């Protein structure tokens, strides 16, 4: 039995436009996705902002009722057996929200220990263990409002583990953290699967998914566009190559012209300090450097390089389709 199973899962939202003439509009956030996560697996749901990652996770953790399809966690239906599901899952999301700032870290954990029904005799020991695990020992009696973003995030992780859940849902857990803080949280996540937990992680950081996940599903515009191990996804674009051009101010029209070139798979622009880097993925055996430069007339061009595709390129190609 799969630990997490989604079958043709869908979710639409109703929204309204206009002030006096209000019109109802339906937005399809998740358009029939299916996947299965095996026990003990660390599965990544990877996609850009607004792709439907958080909506999917919220349906799986019983916060949203799907408008179509079904989902099961540890064999339990997330709609009909919501309370049973909640007992056996943990949920951690990124960012600074989700903490009672006026309470100490310890009191935050104590409150949720009660809510999750952790027996009174075990609470103290469990909280101490988790404070040790997430590195908050010694700071637990300070009010959470004084914690750094990284400390709050680690407090979130500890809260999600209080009742020793079998399955953990981590929604962009390193969002907004500095590199050191993010590395600490990633180390904690890696230790979870070693302890036998099943983890579903959403992220839009490629290297994070590459480093942590056993398998990845790439989600774009509410649909899964690729699924496999990080290696499988890399292989998907390994046949082509990538041209990187450092530019200082590139017009949208120039980008469109590059995109329209024959043999171009995907185009992305990355901001790097004062410059921008135009990343163009091409099909195998196609030499487009001169053609690309030809379309960048009028822009200041810096360093030009050619390299093998990475997982990030695979991701960009998938979500640009």
């Amino acid at each position, binding site marked *: 039995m799969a630990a997490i199973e989604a079958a043709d899962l869908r979710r639409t*939202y*109703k929204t309204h436009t206009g002030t006096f003439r209000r019109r109802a509009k339906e937005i399809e956030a998740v358009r029939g996705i299916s996947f299965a996560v095996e026990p003990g697996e660390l599965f990544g749901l990877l996609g850009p902002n607004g792709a439907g990652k958080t909506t999917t996770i919220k349906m799986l953790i019983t916060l949203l*009722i799907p408008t179509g399809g079904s989902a099961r966690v540890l064999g339990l239906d997330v709609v009909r057996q919501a309370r049973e599901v*909640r007992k056996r899952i943990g949920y951690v999301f990124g960012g600074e929200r*989700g903490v009672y700032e*006026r309470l100490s870290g310890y009191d935050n954990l104590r409150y949720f220990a009660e*809510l999750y029904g952790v027996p*009174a005799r075990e609470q103290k020991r469990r909280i101490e263990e988790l404070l040790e695990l997430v590195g908050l020992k010694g700071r637990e009696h300070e009010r959470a409002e004084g914690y750094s973003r990284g400390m709050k995030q680690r407090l979130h992780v500890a809260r999600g583990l209080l009742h020793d859940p079998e399955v953990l849902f981590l929604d962009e857990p390193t969002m907004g953290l500095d590199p050191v803080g993010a590395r600490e949280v990633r180390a904690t996540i890696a230790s979870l699967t070693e302890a036998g937990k099943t983890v579903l992680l959403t992220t839009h950081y490629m290297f994070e998914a590459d480093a942590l996940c056993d398998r990845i599903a790439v989600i774009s515009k509410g649909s899964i566009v690729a699924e496999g191990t990080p290696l499988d996804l890399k292989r998907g674009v390994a046949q082509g190559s990538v041209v990187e051009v450092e530019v200082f101010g590139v017009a949208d029209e120039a980008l469109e012209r590059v995109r329209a070139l024959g043999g171009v798979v995907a185009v992305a622009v990355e901001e790097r300090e004062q410059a921008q880097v135009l990343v163009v993925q091409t099909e195998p055996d196609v030499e487009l450097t001169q053609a690309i430069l030809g379309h960048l007339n009028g822009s200041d061009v810096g360093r030009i390089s050619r390299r093998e595709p990475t997982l990030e390129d695979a991701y960009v190609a998938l979500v640009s389709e």
Partner: protein
Amino acid sequence: MSSLRLLAVSWWLQFKMIMRSPFDGFGNVIYPLFFATTAFFVFRAGDSPRTLIYASFGAAVMGMWSSVSTSAGSAMQRERWWGTLELLVTTPRHFSLILLPTTLGLATVGIYNLAATLLWGRFLFGVHLTIAHPLLFALAILGTVLSFAGLGFLFAVSFVRFRAAWVLGNFFEYPVWLICGFLVPLSFLPDWVHPISWALAPTWGMSAIRESALGGSPLPDLGACLGLGLGYIVIGVLVTDRVLRAARVSGSLSLT
């Protein structure tokens, strides 16, 4: 047993949070004193010591009610802002066990409002209160606090589903002062208002506090107050699941 423990721990932590908020704290200290001052000035004009005592208890309960009605709604709104509402919903506990201690914590702050108003009246306006039945008076206050928490809980349940419902908390603040006889006796109000007054626990709580202080028999009023408070809680518990399901269907839990 575990539910009782949850209620106790949650109440204590909610109370801690309220007491640690500088703005809430300031409002809770200052607000009731304004009520008291207004009421004392208005009723002092009548030149009857009994009327002034009547007004001082009314002003005291006004403060209690204001604390519950306005904060019960904003408490849920704050959970949304803090991003904790979704976390609370993903726990396996029945949501009413999570909401009830919140409103109970707010109602407890109301006890301070009551004490502050009475002391303000005593030291600034010279209103000497003699409590005829101290034990019954204490019980009447406790019963009123519990029934206010019940009513606040009923409000809070609807605030979970409807984001803008916290405004209703403010809306209910003033009419209750009048309808429940905090400042003027119910007999002054038109007959058609009386059934509404009787359906509201604050009416009976107010009456029980006055009766116990002035030497009457507060027990029937206290019974009605507690009965109604319990009724609100039962209704709240029964509709909680339906309200939460509606919020999960509409996706309004994460909206601020």
